[in-house]
């Protein structure tokens, strides 16, 4: 399935080779910028937007037409008079002490208006659960996506060139990349000096060992998943403007402005009343735009320069410095009776937590609660550990661990079905939650339509009739 249409690229290449000899049009030449763009006016609205009752209607989106016209203003489409551009220098090492940062050569470049390093940030930590992440690393870098310095210049190119003039002296530290290695006592410690495990979870119900001992069959398997990037087509972007009243306005691609303002207030040591955070239409989030990244940096660069400051991540920044999906290593042991009834399930999850906590607390929580699958299992034991590694920070991504554990529990369901000679649909129906089922946390579940979804999907697909 590795596919990529190269036709478009080919077209572009052939045009690039085109000669410059094409005759210019004879139409009168106008001054740049004075041509009004034609906006359609007074278009009719869809019936679904006009109908009552409103709920259940296939109403078109108010933002949909503007998207199609190219009129939606994302951050990168906004500009302010005297606006300048920021770029962020990333770490050269996955794990190192910062000995010194010298920005003087960068500042000497014409067009560079300011630089910023971590120790200039009033409170240089943030994070939705633990504030274990520096806005710009000032003492230690813990992965290669850590920012170490920022430059603001009159254009992006000068800012990018200036980054190369910043001299950072590092003392490399031993790094650890594999979460299983990071669990060992001998592993280098990424935060503090005790352990790399930074959060864990237990779900316990019934007696799992007894349940497994009494089961007719035991199924055991390890499953694992990879690191995945959100790939919003719009990279992270923001603009900050520190005004004469000491108030800062920030336009940002953040999906959570209430938390974002709290984080800005904390990192800048500025009252929340002095901060305005405006979320624009976001060009894709999927969990990756749920915490601040460069916003405090831009605010401080704006304060230093008296100019509005914009920063749009490059695609490379997006991959290496924004959060990504947690890889899981998942050990599943399941006891099942001859009739397909699941008696007991024992699960161990190891989450590659990356360099900082970010949304790992939520991921380990949901992952653990959901790990046994939507099945009635009386004897259950789930233990989960998130461990720091010197890799990209893992955080919130569509499903918070659920796609990982679903891959494991549903793969094992099919192994059980095959071994016991039961149709996969019947095995699921036999064990599925129903209205009032007790969840792994003994919550009584309501509005449960799992069996309905299994039957409806099987009917639609033609599960029973399907032939190879």
């Amino acid at each position, binding site marked *: 399935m590795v596919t990529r249409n190269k*036709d478009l690229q080919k077209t572009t290449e052939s045009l690039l080779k085109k000669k410059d000899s094409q005759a210019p049009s004879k139409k009168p030449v106008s001054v740049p*910028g004075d041509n009004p763009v034609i906006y359609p006016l007074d278009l009719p609205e869809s019936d679904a937007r006009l109908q009552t009752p409103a709920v259940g209607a296939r109403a078109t989106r108010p933002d949909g037409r503007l998207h199609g016209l190219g009129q939606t203003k994302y951050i990168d489409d906004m500009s302010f008079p005297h606006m300048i551009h920021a770029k962020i220098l990333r770490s050269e090492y996955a794990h190192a002490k910062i000995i010194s940062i010298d920005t003087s050569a960068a500042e000497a470049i014409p067009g560079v208006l300011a630089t910023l390093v971590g120790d200039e940030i009033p409170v240089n930590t943030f994070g939705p659960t633990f504030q274990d992440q520096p806005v710009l690393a000032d003492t230690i870098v813990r992965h290669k996506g850590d920012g170490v310095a920022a430059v603001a210049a009159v254009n992006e190119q000068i800012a990018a060139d200036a980054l190369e003039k910043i001299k950072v002296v590092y003392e490399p530290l031993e790094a650890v990349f594999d979460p299983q290695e990071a669990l060992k006592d001998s592993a280098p410690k990424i935060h503090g000096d005790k352990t790399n495990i930074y959060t864990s979870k237990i779900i316990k119900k019934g007696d799992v060992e007894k349940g497994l001992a009494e089961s007719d069959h035991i199924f055991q398997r390890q499953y694992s998943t990879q690191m995945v990037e959100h790939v919003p087509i719009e990279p992270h972007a923001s603009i900050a403007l520190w005004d004469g009243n000491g108030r800062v306005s920030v336009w940002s691609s953040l999906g959570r402005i209430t938390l974002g303002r709290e984080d800005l207030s904390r990192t800048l040591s500025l009252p929340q009343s002095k901060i305005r955070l405006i979320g624009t239409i976001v060009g894709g989030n999927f969990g990756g735009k749920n915490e601040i990244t460069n916003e405090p940096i831009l605010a401080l660069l704006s304060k230093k320069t008296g100019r509005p400051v914009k920063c749009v991540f490059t695609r490379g920044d997006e991959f290496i410095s924004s959060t990504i999906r947690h890889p899981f290593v998942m050990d599943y042991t399941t006891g099942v009776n001859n009739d397909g009834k699941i008696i007991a399930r024992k699960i161990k999850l190891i989450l590659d937590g990356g360099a900082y906590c970010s949304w790992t607390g939520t991921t380990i929580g949901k992952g653990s609660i959901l790990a046994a699958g939507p099945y009635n299992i009386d004897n259950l034991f789930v233990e989960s550990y998130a461990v720091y590694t010197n890799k990209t920070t893992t955080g919130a991504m569509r499903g918070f661990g659920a796609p990982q554990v679903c891959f494991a529990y549903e793969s094992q369901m099919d192994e059980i079905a095959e071994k016991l000679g039961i149709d996969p649909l019947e095995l699921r129906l036999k064990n599925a939650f129903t209205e009032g089922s007790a969840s792994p946390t003994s919550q009584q579940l309501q509005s449960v339509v799992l069996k309905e979804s299994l039957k409806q999907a099987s009917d639609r697909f033609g599960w029973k009739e399907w032939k190879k």
Partner: protein
Amino acid sequence: MKVEITVNGEKKIADVSPETTLLKMLRDEFDLTGAKLGCDVGDCGTCTVVVDGESVNSCLMLAARASGSEVLTIEGLATFQKLHPVQQKFEDLGALQCGYCGPGMIMSAKNLLDKNKSPSVDEIRDALAGNLCRCTGYTKMIEAIQEAAKEINTTNAL
């Protein structure tokens, strides 16, 4: 350097540095921000515009190379009275979610329909293959382009 170019039917001139891309010129010199920067290397297609009848990644094309060309951007598709059928069907079917890929996606679709009045689903998939979308799974876009083709053919038949 001076670049003379026709954009959405209007003649424009810009004075840009030699490394300026067509995308940068459209956005920074002409305030046409419909085409977006998503990757800057021609992978994502959100910068797609039509140059002399071919859809192009404008982040890969130097502005100077487009000199003398006719460029159509997303801003040039609608009139005062009417959306282009692709824009209209994308809206009607909810084919865009975050919308960031939309301008490029619609330009690729428009260019396809200019050349192929009744494309098959596979031909539509081929035409969109250089435009990445992370929100929609492309499904409603493909449906919308089929509907737009029908509408264009019906209008032309009248």
